[in-house]
């Protein structure tokens, strides 16, 4: 699988971004840029500031300081234009379980004002892309974790966003589903030049898929570059070893801990 379909136009620009919660600094003066079509992996230990950063990039949280430009629009002043520019798959599932796959997609289409004459065709195409056509009229509550993730990705693409944010999109999925999902994301990146910004606990995914990687720890970006550059910098053979050397933390153990937390959360979900 060759890496991303990139051009030189900057689509995400983050300058001196900071977020504080009651005196605690979750994100501390970070800056980076991402070009159109890039697949950018944003890595870091639990609580390092990855999700907070994504929330600020996607208008869900107001930054304490700093500037963010998405697709040429300032996040603070042009929220609607920014929101039209991206699709997002959140870390936690965000589908309505009481609706069918089709209804979840349709709901999204209306919210994003997808032209009425295109809605049906786009939903069908995307459901086919994520292999859920035959389940389109089933309630989401009957779906497995992998199916939900695929549906969320399809939903995130319905309004043809320029950027797709994926916050731990493959967490808790089996290896086969993960591979399938990434090959679909790869197709999207190549077909539409969609910029992909993702976080993951699976460093093999980051190494294989990302054209560039940034590692955040304690709210600060501690390393940035291609996987090869990070390996050379740390004199290691894999991104996982490079990560361990940079952060001093074993991401595998964190992944196990995090998944236990996620399962507990899911089990508390009302039925």
């Amino acid at each position: 699988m060759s890496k991303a379909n990139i051009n030189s136009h900057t689509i995400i620009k983050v300058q001196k971004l900071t977020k504080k919660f009651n005196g605690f600094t979750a994100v501390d003066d970070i800056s980076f840029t991402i070009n159109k079509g890039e697949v950018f992996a944003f890595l870091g230990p639990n609580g390092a500031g990855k999700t907070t950063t994504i929330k600020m990039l996607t208008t869900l949280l107001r930054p304490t300081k700093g500037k963010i430009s998405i697709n040429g629009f300032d996040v603070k002043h042009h929220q609607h234009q920014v929101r039209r520019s991206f699709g997002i798959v959140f870390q936690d599932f965000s589908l309505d379980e009481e609706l069918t796959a089709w209804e979840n997609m349709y709901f999204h289409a209306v919210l994003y004002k997808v032209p009425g004459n295109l809605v049906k065709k786009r939903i069908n195409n995307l459901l086919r892309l994520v292999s859920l056509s035959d389940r389109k009229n089933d309630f989401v509550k009957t779906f497995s974790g992998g199916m939900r993730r695929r549906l969320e990705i399809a939903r995130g693409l319905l309004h043809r966003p320029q950027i797709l944010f994926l916050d731990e999109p493959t967490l808790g999925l089996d290896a086969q589903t993960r591979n399938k999902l990434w090959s679909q994301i790869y197709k999207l990146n190549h077909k539409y030049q969609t910029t992909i910004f993702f976080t993951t606990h699976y460093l093999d995914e980051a190494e294989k898929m990302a054209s560039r990687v940034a590692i955040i720890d304690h709210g600060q970006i501690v390393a940035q570059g291609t996987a090869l550059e990070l390996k050379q910098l740390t004199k290691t053979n894999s991104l996982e070893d490079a990560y361990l050397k940079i952060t001093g933390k074993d991401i595998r153990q964190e992944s196990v801990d995090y998944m236990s937390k996620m399962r507990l959360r899911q089990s508390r979900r009302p039925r």
Partner: protein
Amino acid sequence: MIKIIYIMWLRQIKRYWRSKSRIIGSIGQPMLYLVAMGFGLGGIYQKAGGGNYIDFLAPGVISQSIMFMAVFNGVDLIWDKQFGFLKETLVAPVSRLEIVLGRVLGGATISVIQGILVFLLTLVVGFKPENLSYLLPSVGLMFLIGLFYASLGTAIASLMKDFHGFQLIMNFLIMPSYFLSGALFPLDSAPPALQTIASFNPLTYGVSGLRQLMAGTVNYSLGIDILILIILSSITLSITSYLFTKIEA
């Protein structure tokens, strides 16, 4: 704008309609009040010269069930906050006012459906409406009660992060509102202090209005009931919209 409000409204309706256990469960409590209190206290009420207690009680129980359903629909926002769906709407390129209007109107509509179901139940236990031609205006009033309480529930939910404060709502908002609204006993024979407290309770005006339309009994004038409910709904809806815009996921 209308389409966004409509889709948010439709989602609420679909979720309600598909949850049959919720519909059946929500009839249980009004049924208990009608049977236990209606038949239990009916004799005493009649001996005291109050007339048919079911006729008195029915509008009160209908109002109470509308309030319950509307508040819980508003508070439903906490589930969406906790289990992710809210984020999908918050990152959409639409104004939060549209989202909140759709949600509140959905909650109000569901509470009207609930009110109609309980109304049918009251007929089964012997309630005889004074004038059937007032049924349509009664539905309108039910909607106003629902609108106010769905806004209130959504406002509260906008401020809450989880369900830990839920018991607080039950104990300090819902139950006192019900018991101090004149739903169960005539306010004009209550002590003046209680009457004063009841006059600050929005549900009092809902019960009063419905009782006038359905049973022909006057407490406050219908015009005052409607006016107060419209004013309160407008104020609450404005506050709710403001609080909703401040939500950070």
